[in-house]
């Protein structure tokens, strides 16, 4: 039996349409079923639908054009790669996943709206790693020391400046060991 619409392909989908009590049997091919405007009762072609993929879903955000706030920063090319893990912008777009923790920083310009779109405008409020807290304090200490260093240089107190510089170096090295 050939498809009653295109009359070329074999009819593989058979269904009964009931309109106002009037029964009508239809025999069509998959191709025509896909192009039909009216939905077919039990969606016989549903099995042909590819599985939902979270990666495609996230990647899809990048392909939305004409948005008031452009989602993709045009100044980043698909071959731009995270210096730590080598994940490229193109790959990230395709996989919807990042390659390392640095990617979140590296791609932050590239995906300004992504995180908000998934999580809203919130800030993490849950558990904080114990070491994370210590490191945070360390980071803040380095920031303060840098300020102090600038002051020392301005005041031409070079002895103190050298001291501070060594202190910063030490702190940074310690951080590097822990990281």
């Amino acid at each position, binding site marked *: 039996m050939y498809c009653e619409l295109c009359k070329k392909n074999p009819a593989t989908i058979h269904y009964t349409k009931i309109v106002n009590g009037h029964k009508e049997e239809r025999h069509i091919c998959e191709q025509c079923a896909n192009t039909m405007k009216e939905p077919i009762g039990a969606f016989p072609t549903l099995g042909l639908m590819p599985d939902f993929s979270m990666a495609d879903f*996230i990647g899809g955000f990048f392909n939305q054009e004409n948005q008031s706030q452009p989602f993709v920063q045009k100044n980043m090319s698909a071959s731009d790669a995270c210096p730590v893990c080598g994940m490229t912008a193109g790959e990230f777009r395709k996989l919807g*996943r990042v390659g390392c923790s640095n990617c979140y920083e590296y791609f932050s310009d590239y995906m300004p709206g992504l*995180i908000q779109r*998934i*999580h809203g405008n919130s800030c993490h409020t849950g558990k904080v790693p114990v*070491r994370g807290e210590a*490191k945070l304090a360390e980071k803040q200490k380095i920031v303060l020391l840098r300020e102090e260093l600038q002051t020392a240089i301005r005041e031409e107190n070079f002895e103190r400046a050298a001291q501070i510089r060594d202190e910063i170096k030490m702190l940074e090295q310690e951080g590097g060991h822990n*990281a």
Partner: protein
Amino acid sequence: MLKHLVQSNNSPWTIGSGDDKDVVLCTRIRLARNFSKYPFPLKQTEETGQAVLADMAAFCKDHSNLKFYDLQNIPTLEKQALVEKHLISPEHSKEDHQCRGLAVNEDGSISIMINEEDHLRIQCFAPGLNLQELWKKANVLDDRIESYFDYAFDEKLGYLTCCPTNLGNGMRASIMMHLPGLALTKRVSILDQLGNFGMTVRGIFGEGSQSLGDVYQISNQSAIGQSEQDILTNLQSVAQQIIKEERNARNFLKEHNGLLLSDKVWRAYGTLANARYITSREALELISLVRLGHSLGYFNQLNLTQIDQMFLTAQPGYLQVIRGGVMDDTARDSYRAEKIREILA
């Protein structure tokens, strides 16, 4: 030890007693964590992948309750059984030459998948509905691991994960529920509403959306800005609501359709107790009815552990592991019938 764990007829959802065990098979809390010093598994080299395994192997050496396994050395069938027992994900059982590892304790109530999508997926299980206790346990274990290694963490984004949807606290809590009452009264659709509360639902047995055996898993969706406690409180109250609806449905069936229901569950029992050949699908459907009957007091000679062990016996991987080798469909279906008869004997 792994062989013993795989072959044992116990899994977190077949053992013990817990709150609301008539409806809730088990509770799981899973934490996604990454080490800050290595790229995520997606971008791992053999070297950095092995380094993560070595780090966790060393951690397990210091914690004798945990045993470390390189999944490369684990036979395919055993991995399938581990998936069926929910100790690893289907993804983690793939033989794709990634450096996949597992750290597990003796009764399988703790299982850490190493180099799955994230470096660590820390999982804790408990029978029945048990979110608070379980969170305490997972939290302590998480602290222990963190005292050894630096986690990838950002003040604003929380724990950094490979997939941006898991950012935040990286916690997923899941409740495995048996809902035959809602299924028989055609009210499973109430589960569709859970999306509005930030929850997802999926069937446990069978593929896709169909749920064989009427067992469903209800989980939170990870989100930045919600504390672990908020999520657990929310999930707990949703679960209690579903438990209430399920019990209502069961009692309604018993009161208004008692004869029909008792016939249905006794026939299910009769088939399971006497069949010589049974597919996984048929077994799951019948076991669900027997479990329902048990909760309504129809089978005093049975206990829940026996019934849930039948759920496990219905699984093809586990069945072949206890048989000790690969079987074709026919052999499997007849061996399954034999093992189920043994449980009911």
